[in-house]
């Protein structure tokens, strides 16, 4: 705590790089922190909702085709497939900054509606992430052994029940690394939202650099903050992964014929 204050006492001309870093953080800390807060808020909610969108789309796209279904059902399926494909291609194939401009300024122009900036940022990140996650989820579902589906169907479970209880838990466990990736990407990519007036970390950093003329030091601070955010996020996801795996040991329970025995046996993976 004393270091930044101490840095303030050093005369401007004599400051070293790190003394500048300390000084800038002490002076503009509130801007960096509020920018980081916005970045984290938008990327967190955007990634979660994007994941939900991706899950939904992944489940819909993997509904088994039934050749004996009625033709209106088949037509509906085809229409839905095409719409989803268009959504995925468009939002994966265009830069997020372009999507931000088109969605935010486009809706304002066309409908005269001014969406609150943060909400717009959240929506854009969600929609964008959803397109990527849809394909990741689909891949995750496809990687699950067909036998899991067959076993569930053979005891009479519907597609939805199979997905919710058997396939998705396993698929999500496999997808978590990719989700972490997407989260990290979003933390950094929210920087493009400055074109729609969202004051996230990068925009705030530019302001500080522009007014203090100390570019290296300012962006050094920003780098450290981005790193802290992405690192924390990946660690938390790693924790979730491990929780989903369950314990690596199991307890043997007594049956009706043998007494209760608490023997811990180390099982496989």
């Amino acid at each position, binding site marked *: 705590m004393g270091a930044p204050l101490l840095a303030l006492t050093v005369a401007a001309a004599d400051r070293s790089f790190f003394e500048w870093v300390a000084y800038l953080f002490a002076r503009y800390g509130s801007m960096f922190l509020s920018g980081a807060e916005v970045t984290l808020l938008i990327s967190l*909610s955007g990634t979660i909702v994007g994941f939900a969108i991706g899950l939904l789309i992944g489940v819909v796209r993997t509904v088994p085709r039934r050749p004996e279904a009625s033709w209106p059902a088949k037509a509906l399926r085809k229409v839905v497939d095409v719409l989803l494909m268009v959504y995925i291609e468009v939002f994966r194939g265009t830069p997020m900054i372009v999507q931000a401009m088109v969605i935010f300024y486009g809706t304002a122009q066309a409908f005269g509606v001014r969406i*609150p900036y943060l909400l717009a940022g*959240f929506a854009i990140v969600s929609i964008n992430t959803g397109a990527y996650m849809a394909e990741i989820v689909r891949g995750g579902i496809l990687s699950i052994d067909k036998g899991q589906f067959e076993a569930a169907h053979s005891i009479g479970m519907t597609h939805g029940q199979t997905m919710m209880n058997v396939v998705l838990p396993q698929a999500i466990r496999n997808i978590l690394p990719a989700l972490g990736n997407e989260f990290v990407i979003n933390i950094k990519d929210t920087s493009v939202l400055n074109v729609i007036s969202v004051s996230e970390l990068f*925009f705030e950093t530019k302001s500080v650099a522009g007014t203090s003329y100390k570019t290296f030091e300012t962006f050094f601070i920003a780098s450290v903050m981005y790193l802290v955010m992405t690192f924390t996020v990946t660690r938390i996801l790693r924790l979730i992964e491990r929780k989903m795996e369950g314990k690596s040991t199991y307890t043997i329970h007594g049956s009706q014929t043998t007494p209760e025995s608490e023997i811990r046996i180390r099982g496989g993976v």
Partner: protein
Amino acid sequence: MMRKWLSLALVLTLVVASALLATGCASSGSGEFRVGLECAYAPFNWTQTDASNGAVKIEGTNDYAGGYDVEIAKQIATGLGKKLVIVKTQWDGLVPAVESGTIDAIIAGMSPTADRKQSIDFTANYYRSELVLVVKKSSAYANATSLADFSGAKVTAQLSTFHYTVIDQIPGVLKQTAMDDFPAMRVALESGIIDAYVSERPEGVSAVAANPDFAMVQFAVGKGFTTSDDDVAIAVGLKKGQAALVTKIDAILAGISDAQRTQIMDTAIKNQPSSN
């Protein structure tokens, strides 16, 4: 197990979404004069953390905007009888913002170039600057007096501005790739990647004051860049088709004399929160 995670995630998102909605739901009151600027380009516009020296709160943040552009915006808002709202927007978003009506005006040190006039309208100028070149004090170019002295120099300027086009006026120049913004150019100059960058006098003065290694090269009349008024002056950008508003703002601007403008600019240069 799955259900627990799902409901947790859902609750979390709902909380966040409502927080975002609450913070953002600003009613588009017609009593507001919404002005867009970057707040990153001292001494025209900058961001500061407190309200000193008459800075205006930036919408959606806890920071304040100050600078020449902000002072002019304040005067225009008063003249129009509206409340000034500063909307911090990155450069590329300014024109779409005013076109779509999410802001009412651009007062961001923007020049009324012919290209821009195709998309938006401009008022009369509210500042006229001169072009200078910022160099390192230790370089040979520090004592230049004419454009010809920069022959063979590596020169750049900001992307998408007329600053970049005028570089061609230097005979034998080594024109470098344009850069995103002034902080990037200052870094490039500091590290020797470029020999000079094109700027306007106020920014040049500020840069030199902030960095003792820098020097500014000003040219006597006739020895410097040839520019049109529309290029070196800055004006207020408005959505097309608002002749009445243009007239009103022009009238307000006419009430600010050249002497007053110089004084406001000098105050801004003094007040900017640069390294001190």
